[in-house]
């Protein structure tokens, strides 16, 4: 590939700009180039004021989530060649307040994360270490859902998050599920009460946008559906 990429980047500096704008750059391509390479090239050689987050570069930290060509993606894990076009538009994640350029305020996301108490609390009456075999049925699909790196892609893709400020969102509900389904946890019932609210599980309408964008192939829809079932069963006195 000798032709360059035609990159449109969202720019907004609240200290100096009245309104957001797009800057255009022609970026040379190399083999296996990722979107993170694109913005780093722009920052290193073309415009030092471009702001974006990144850290590990290998899809583990969740810092570099951006909205690229119509979808929320991890910049480090999105190959330019996979986009199948030379025209690339890079914007900050939707559904988040913007701090500057491609950097968004993750605070609303983490506030909701905290609301479901995203940490394991051991039951006092059982002896540690508690053994639940890896192949035991009661792990259900918890294991698949544990890979979350809280990147915010699912949260930014969800239409319910867009229209309802209070909605907990797919990431928080998914994390809540992994703990509610965990028999060793001490506050499972309290957690279920938190998600059993109009701004909890009941706002999900199985749109699947979250699953489409998750870089870890998590399906939050599945966790949320499981939680809805648990909420109903609890009303009938059943809680496993």
């Amino acid at each position, binding site marked *: 590939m000798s032709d360059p990429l035609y990159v449109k980047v969202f720019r907004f500096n609240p200290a100096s700009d009245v309104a957001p704008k797009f800057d255009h750059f022609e970026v040379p391509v190399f083999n296996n180039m990722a979107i993170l390479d694109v913005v780093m090239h722009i920052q290193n050689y073309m415009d030092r004021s471009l702001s974006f987050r990144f850290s590990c570069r290998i899809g583990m930290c969740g810092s570099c989530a951006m909205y690229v060509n119509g979808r929320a993606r991890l910049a480090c894990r999105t190959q330019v060649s996979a986009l199948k076009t030379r025209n690339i538009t890079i914007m900050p994640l939707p559904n988040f307040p913007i701090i500057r350029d491609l950097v968004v305020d993750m605070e609303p996301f983490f506030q909701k994360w905290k609301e479901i108490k995203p940490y394991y609390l051991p039951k006092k009456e059982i002896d540690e270490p508690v053994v639940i075999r890896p192949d035991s049925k009661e792990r259900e699909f918890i294991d698949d859902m544990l890979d979350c790196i809280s990147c915010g892609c699912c949260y930014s893709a969800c239409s*319910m998050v867009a*229209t*309802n*400020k*209070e909605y907990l969102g797919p990431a928080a509900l998914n994390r809540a599920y992994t703990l509610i389904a965990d028999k060793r946890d001490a506050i499972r019932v309290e957690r279920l009460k938190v998600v*059993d*609210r*109009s701004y909890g599980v*009941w*706002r999900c*309408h199985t749109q699947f946008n979250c699953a489409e964008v998750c870089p870890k192939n998590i399906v939050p829809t599945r966790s949320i559906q499981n939680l*809805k079932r648990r*909420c*109903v069963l*609890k*009303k009938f006195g059943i809680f496993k």
Partner: protein
Amino acid sequence: MHAWTWFLQRISAVILVIVLGLHIGFLHFSNGGESLNYTDIMARLKTPIFISLDILLLIFGLYHALYGLYSVFLDFDSGKKEKIVVFGFLVTMGLSFLGFGIFGLICTFC
């Protein structure tokens, strides 16, 4: 509350698929697509089965529809007061339409 109302929404959905299917089938497809008139409908309606079918349709149809509306409302930002007002309005609407509908069905025989 939401677990119950959501669950009832699903139950009403299942019931509606069956009852609505029957309703449309009997009304529009059982006489070869010809126009309906009062005599035909009265003949069909005067049986307890069909009155019950139509009342079921009213109850679950109205519930499903109005809870659906409420669900759309909740998908957007609103205050606690607004939620109560809208809920009350929808319940009132539902009961009124249900009452009128049942009245219309049954009181043709009054």
